[in-house]
């Protein structure tokens, strides 16, 4: 009898789903590489991307600021990325996938890296959570997380005002993401995030989006040194000037 119990226990260990075998043990493990998700039977990738859908519910003040920014940029096509600057939240998260997202998960800290522009978010949990007064504002803000059952809830605050992305916001914005794992009908492991952006300075009501990523088995993030091209062009210019000065 004890041998049977031992065998049953062993088989449970062998078939323990990978998604539950993370560092934390009791929570789903989101560790790995995640790319754009395509619903089974659909030709086009899913996920967020506000290319002309429902207009965002801007306040009058936000409308003016965004219109001012867009008029300034005009038809130049200039973007923060054009200056090797990361998108910032929530665009960094909602726009990831084609350039994949890597998650490394530990019980006290989860690092999320978006390949494009190497944007890194560090999500602190439990005792690692940084006190509000010690947080430094930035384009991706400051994130803390906690678990509600199998759902990881990430709250992001300390964002700087950004009118230069698809989801403009003020420095008062608060973003809540709720992450969970599902398996679709094609047995693909899918990470789902439900995002709510609350910002009474910029929006008359909260903005919500749902984003999905597909797991890439044994996938690897690639290096992305955005400034290398600019540096090489600069060196070529210097070489050209040096040659001209010798003449």
């Amino acid at each position, binding site marked *: 009898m004890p041998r049977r119990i031992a065998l049953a226990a062993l088989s449970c260990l062998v078939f323990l789903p990978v998604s539950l075998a993370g560092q934390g043990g009791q929570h789903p493990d989101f560790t790995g590489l995640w790319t754009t998700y395509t619903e089974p039977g659909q030709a*086009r990738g899913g996920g967020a991307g506000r290319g002309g859908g429902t207009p965002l519910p801007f306040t009058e003040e936000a409308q003016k600021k965004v219109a001012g920014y867009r008029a300034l940029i005009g038809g130049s096509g200039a*973007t923060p*990325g054009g200056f*090797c600057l990361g998108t910032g939240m929530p665009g960094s998260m909602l726009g990831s996938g084609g*350039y994949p997202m890597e998650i490394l998960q530990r019980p006290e800290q989860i690092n999320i890296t978006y390949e494009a522009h190497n944007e890194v978010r560090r999500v602190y949990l439990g005792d690692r959570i940084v006190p509000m007064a010690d947080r430094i504002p930035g384009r991706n803000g400051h994130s803390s997380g906690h678990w509600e059952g199998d759902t990881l809830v990430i709250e992001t605050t300390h964002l700087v005002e950004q009118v230069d992305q698809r989801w403009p916001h003020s420095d008062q914005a608060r973003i809540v993401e709720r992450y969970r794992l599902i398996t679709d009908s094609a047995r693909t492991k899918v990470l789902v995030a439900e995002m709510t952006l609350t910002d009474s300075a910029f929006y008359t009501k909260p903005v919500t989006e749902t984003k999905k990523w597909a797991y890439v088995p044994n996938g690897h993030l*690639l290096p992305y040194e955005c400034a290398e091209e600019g540096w*090489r062009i600069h060196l070529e210019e210097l070489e050209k000037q040096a040659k001209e000065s010798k003449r």
Partner: protein
Amino acid sequence: MKQLWSLLSAVALVMLTATTAAAHHSAVQYDFTKAAKITGVVLKFQAINPHMRLTLRITDEKGTRDLEIEGHSTNNMYRAGYRDGMIKVGDTITVDVAPLRDGREGGYMIAAVTASGTRFGVQSAAERARERERAEGK
């Protein structure tokens, strides 16, 4: 197909966020609804981000001239089949480009056929449209 759409999403992101830093320009100067082929000898090739850079020496009935071409990021091209060493100075290669809107020679490299005949890169908008039509039985 999933990988293709992932790549195309990344390409879209490049168009939105990752244009050349030093030149501070966007990709609006290229017409991504059109495709053209350019064959030449590689004078310079840089597999970097956010754009691959290539100088090709073209020789045809108009004479010989050098064209500077930029293209998708090395990361996107890697996921579309590019590997280190595939393009070397002195190679004769053919690149698929989205041509410049103003009619000048050159374009934005979206794919290439290397000296050994290996192809890497993404489909043009026209190729994608043809594929959709085939799939829909048109």
